[in-house]
């Protein structure tokens, strides 16, 4: 039996705890320690985890980071600006880390700890959420169908909790990083409009460049791919207000979101395109992915004993099957192209 520490009792962290405590599979979790700096969030999480809390399987602590964490895995689901310290503290304790953050700057900062994670032999999974996370696993799966992959394009819609919404709001006003022809191209966030068709019920949405961490993590996983981009759906109002502070408070949790991964390359002698996607509420999807990653870490199924993205850490087909058991259904777009 295992013990998991979850830092951050927000929309994602609480759900990760619920998934782990409900799991009856191999590597299931005996106890969960929830930490947060907001007592209201902790009491809300306890209410959600009612049954497990009554059994004494949930502990809550009103504190930010563990000094001496007594856990087999640490899940970092804290807001931006706190994840780097959380990962550093967890690494110093020599405990595997599952990070569900999606901010570009913080992901890059955490990635600088890769040498330390490698030296310690501690698995640190970067971007174990919806996007990055499931997007990378979909890309890895589609990648396996090609002889040579030339392009990977990720698009996403929706935000998990308020912290995620704030990251997305800021991302539209920051520089995006696209990998193209052997170098990083910096482009303004909010530019490069592209109509992307997501799985139902989301459907078609205008997507724009933004400061997203997907290209960085995908380039790490697939260094041979010549072009990697990431876009997020936004409205005109989102783009207009992106440079300003958030004018209105966000809802506790957003509606249904989606990720879409387009992979282009060569199969035999023909050029081909594969488009995969998933539609789900982002916090639910991120929690399912993070919880499944925790179970893989506890079962010793992670491929890398060091720092890597989820796409490098897991075997895509088995992972998609496991998250499918939690209701995340990966879909493929099948259609025809016709010039009119």
């Amino acid at each position, binding site marked *: 039996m295992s013990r998991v520490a979850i830092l951050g009792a927000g929309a994602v962290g609480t759900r990760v705890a619920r998934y782990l405590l409900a799991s009856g599979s191999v590597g299931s979790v005996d106890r969960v320690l929830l930490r947060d700096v907001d007592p209201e969030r902790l009491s809300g999480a306890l209410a959600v985890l009612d049954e497990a809390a009554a059994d004494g399987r949930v502990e809550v602590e009103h504190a930010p980071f563990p000094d001496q964490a007594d856990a087999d895995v640490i899940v970092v689901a804290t807001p931006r600006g706190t994840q780097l310290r959380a990962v550093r503290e967890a690494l110093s304790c020599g405990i595997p880390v599952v990070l569900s953050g999606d901010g570009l700057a913080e992901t890059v900062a955490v990635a600088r700890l890769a040498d330390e994670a490698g030296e310690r032999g501690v698995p640190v999974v970067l971007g174990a959420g919806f996007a990055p996370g499931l997007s990378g696993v979909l890309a890895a799966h589609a990648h396996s169908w090609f002889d040579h992959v030339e392009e990977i394009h990720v698009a996403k819609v929706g935000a998990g909790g308020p912290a995620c919404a704030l990251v997305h709001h800021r991302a539209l006003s920051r520089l995006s990083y696209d990998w193209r022809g052997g170098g990083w191209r910096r482009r303004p966030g909010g530019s490069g409009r592209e109509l992307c*068709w997501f*799985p*139902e019920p989301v459907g078609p949405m205008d997507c724009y460049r933004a400061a997203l961490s997907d290209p960085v993590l995908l380039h790490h996983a697939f260094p041979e791919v010549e072009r990697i981009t990431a876009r997020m759906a936004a409205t005109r109002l989102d783009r207009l207000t992106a440079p300003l502070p958030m004018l209105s408070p966000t809802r506790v949790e957003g509606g249904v979101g989606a990720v879409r991964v387009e992979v282009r390359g060569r199969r035999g002698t023909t050029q081909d395109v594969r488009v*995969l*996607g998933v539609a789900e509420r982002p916090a639910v999807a991120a929690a399912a992915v993070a919880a499944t990653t925790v179970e893989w870490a506890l079962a010793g199924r992670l491929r890398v004993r060091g720092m890597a993205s989820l796409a490098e850490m897991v075997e895509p*087909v088995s992972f*998609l*099957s496991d998250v499918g058991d939690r209701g995340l*259904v*990966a*879909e*493929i*777009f*099948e*259609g*025809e*192209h*016709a*010039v*009119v």
Partner: protein
Amino acid sequence: MRMIRRAIAALWTTAAVAVALRAVGGVPVERQSGGWRPLEGPDLT
């Protein structure tokens, strides 16, 4: 006066080009038909 005439002419030209593009249409757009289906069976091998 000459400058105002030029500005008005430029505006008229811009409007005429915009109307022409709107009427004729731009670059052909690739239309997609099809839909999403769950990954299953041979897709997951």
